[in-house]
């Protein structure tokens, strides 16, 4: 349903008005992700690649489409766990900007839709040439509407985001789970908007499911501080960002990163640093490194991960 709504929005965006081609602002990019898990009884590593394309018609609105594939390798010593998982995530989003005269800023209504297939590959018998692999698919759909306000002086931002995600497995022994998330956000621009402090709460409720044991509510706070540089900066940085998550969250939807955290374990903390460089007027690259800690709900296994992420994007 939500995918259909996004298709309709995109169709309207393209055909509903005779909008001039030269007034579209495009951005395309590719990204790579590599993650290693420490102290986990089941997870070993993750590698991912993705691409995105966004188009904005001046300041009136725009759309974004992205596609990511991730490959997760499991520890090979537990026969009940999958050998590996292949994730494929399609995201479509649309946004419209409004400038009401009664408000000192811009209002944006945004709707993102996600479709993810997780193919879990199990080794069911034998080894070597006699081994057999069975694949069971997890299907995830998500919808994430966000209403936001940014004042004209770019010193204050607020949004209210809601996300609904549904996880379904082809394995009848695994329950479906419905996830509802409220994510109110406040942002503050400082130093002539060259610094940005953002606070986002994640209030997540889960339906009863054997995926999440007895857990039905999680809450976390994400804090981000971004700084944009002007000139004479070490390493010629364009911007840098520090982010941290305190509290606990599971199956979160991050509307800034346009990402669903479909890992079925409880995230108990995270910290990351990102640096952005501009390679000319139109090309930028982001390098991000981070640390995350997790707790597996069913076994109480505590583990952590360290990741590196790099993206290159071009605007035109």
């Amino acid at each position, binding site marked *: 349903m939500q995918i259909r709504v996004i298709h309709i929005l995109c169709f309207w965006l393209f055909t509903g008005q005779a909008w001039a081609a030269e007034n579209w602002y495009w951005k395309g990019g590719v990204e790579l992700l590599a993650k290693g898990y420490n102290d986990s009884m089941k997870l070993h590593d993750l590698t991912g690649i993705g691409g995105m394309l966004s188009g904005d018609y*001046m*300041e009136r609105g725009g759309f974004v489409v992205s596609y990511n594939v991730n490959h997760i390798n499991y520890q090979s010593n537990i026969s009940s766990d999958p050998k590996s998982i292949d994730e494929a995530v399609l995201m479509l989003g649309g946004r419209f900007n409004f400038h009401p005269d009664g408000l000192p800023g811009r209002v944006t209504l945004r709707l993102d839709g996600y479709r993810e297939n997780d193919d879990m590959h199990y080794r069911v018998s034998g080894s070597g040439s006699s081994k057999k692999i069975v694949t069971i698919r997890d299907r995830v759909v998500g919808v994430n509407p966000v209403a936001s306000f940014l004042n004209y002086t770019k010193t204050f931002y607020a949004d209210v985001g809601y996300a609904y995600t549904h996880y379904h497995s082809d394995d009848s022994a695994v329950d479906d789970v419905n996830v509802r998330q409220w994510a109110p956000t406040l942002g503050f621009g400082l130093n002539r908007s060259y610094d940005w402090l953002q606070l986002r709460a994640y209030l997540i409720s889960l339906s009863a499911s054997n995926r999440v044991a007895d857990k039905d509510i999680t809450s976390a706070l994400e804090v981000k501080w971004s700084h944009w540089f002007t000139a004479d900066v070490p390493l010629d940085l364009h911007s840098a960002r520090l982010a941290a998550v305190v509290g606990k969250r599971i199956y979160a939807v991050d509307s800034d990163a346009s990402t669903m955290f479909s890992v079925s374990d409880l995230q108990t903390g995270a910290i990351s640093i990102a640096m952005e460089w501009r390679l000319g007027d139109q090309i930028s690259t982001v390098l991000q490194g981070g640390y995350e800690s997790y707790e597996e709900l069913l076994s109480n296994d505590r583990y952590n991960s360290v990741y590196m992420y790099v993206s290159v994007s071009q605007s035109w």
Partner: protein
Amino acid sequence: MLTKNLFILVLVSGFLVPVYASGATDPWIESYRLEALAQYDSAAKSLEQIIKEQPRNEFAILRRGWLGYLRGAHNEAIRDYQRALDINPLSLDARLGLMLPLIAQQRWREVAAHASQVLEVSPWNYYAHVRLMISEEGEKQWEVLARHADKVHQRYPSDVTVLVYLARANDWMKEHKKARKAYAQVLERVPGHIEATQYLSRY
């Protein structure tokens, strides 16, 4: 001949005198009078009858757009300027006017698009260049703004506004020597200019 002219004068007076004697006023005069009193809403309302009777009166619509901008009804102003552009697509007045409420709403890309359209047919139009510079400042395109302001300064060497944008762009790029030079030129043109004075006292 004299008798005929007198007859016409009496006839015209007969039409005019009752109009003004009844207290009705010329809507244009009323509109300008109310604008001078900063009663922009009433000034716009005084044009309503004209626009109702002449829906394609380009100037009345342009003027209502201007009054809408002055009273902060930016969306109404945008609609009026767009309507004026629909009536007369060649109008630079409407396009330049349209940029004002767009600037107020910080729609920098739309401002730049309209400025570019004006500059296509009028390459050194001062207002289009200044409004494009405002857009470049809003987008933090400091190198673009510095180059642009420098070019416009060569065409309008006595202008202060262009020099201020040149100085600001250089300041953001930490080109303090160039910023100082531009602000010093501002002070030559407007002694006591607050922004220039403050900058030169700091650097």
